[in-house]
């Protein structure tokens, strides 16, 4: 009982600290959230808007009187961002026009990696994977895409993905299996060729 109360107190203190230093927290999480949105939406401009929405929602939720305590703020923020992207993906279904990912815009935003990061070959390879998968992701449903992106790019466990998406693990596995089936050609090519 005391342990639960202590945990609750610590979570509330963590939430209060986030409100107190929201700018610092946002700066630390901003790039990750933006890349997550970009991978889910496949469009840099839309990801920019979704990232802004996610942080505004986060601020509103945290600064509200009696806001719920957060045990894992990063996971909670991911959930806010994923839900924001899912809303946008669902709304796309009602659009008779649909913007395709603009590679030139993305290239303008995504600068080349710094010299301190892995080798240029790795960077090039990662970019190739990113481009191929980004194109292939458009074939997935919003849920399948979310599950795959969280697993592939964020290396989240199935339990974490389930918590972020608000699903049970069995459903997450089903979404992932369907996503892998739809991406089979690309994944076979990527892993088969590079893994040899």
């Amino acid at each position, binding site marked *: 009982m005391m342990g639960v109360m202590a945990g609750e107190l610590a979570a509330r203190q963590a939430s209060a600290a986030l409100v107190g230093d929201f700018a610092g927290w946002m700066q630390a999480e*901003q790039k990750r959230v933006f890349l997550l949105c970009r991978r889910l939406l496949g469009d840099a401009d839309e990801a920019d808007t979704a990232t802004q929405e996610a942080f505004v929602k986060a601020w509103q939720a945290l600064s509200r009187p009696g806001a719920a305590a957060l045990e894992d703020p990063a996971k909670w923020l991911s959930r806010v961002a994923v839900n924001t992207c899912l809303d946008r993906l669902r709304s796309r279904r009602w659009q008779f026009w649909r913007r395709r990912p603009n590679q030139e815009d993305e290239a303008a935003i*995504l600068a080349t*990696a710094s010299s301190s990061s892995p080798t240029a070959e790795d960077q090039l390879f*990662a970019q190739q994977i990113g481009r191929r998968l980004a194109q292939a992701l458009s074939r997935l449903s919003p849920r399948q895409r979310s599950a795959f992106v969280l697993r592939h790019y964020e290396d989240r466990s199935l339990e974490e993905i389930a918590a972020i998406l608000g699903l049970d693990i069995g459903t997450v596995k089903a979404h992932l*299996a369907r996503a892998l089936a739809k991406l089979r050609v690309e994944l*076979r090519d990527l892993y088969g060729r590079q893994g040899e």
Partner: protein
Amino acid sequence: MPARHWTDDELIARLYGVGPEDGHLEECGECAARWRRFAAVRERALVEPEVSQEFLIAQRRRIYERIEGPRPVFWKPALGVPIAAAAMILAALLLSGPKPSPQPTLASSDRPKDAELFADIYDTLESAELQALAPVRGLFEEKQ
């Protein structure tokens, strides 16, 4: 009889947490080696692309603006300077505009003095023209 080796699809599925769970990877060195190669490929895919600092700073600025909420137009710093400049230009135009032309006034030295005025009137009354009208005027004057 040894179990068959895993296919690429099964190894890929395992990478994503949905592959077979028959313990084959713990028993088969060949499949374990292939799986490690696949895992290395995926590790490389986890390399995050850099995002320019300028973009992130501009994005944070927009987030702050949205958090603070919309302000009245005249409070926006971006509009404050143009509005102030326009007000100054308007004031300068009003102050430096063409002055109204001065109305003609008589200088005090040009004003006729009272004595001269009376003299002029007296002269007029005593003029020849009015004297010629005296008989007619007499018709209407009551006799004492």
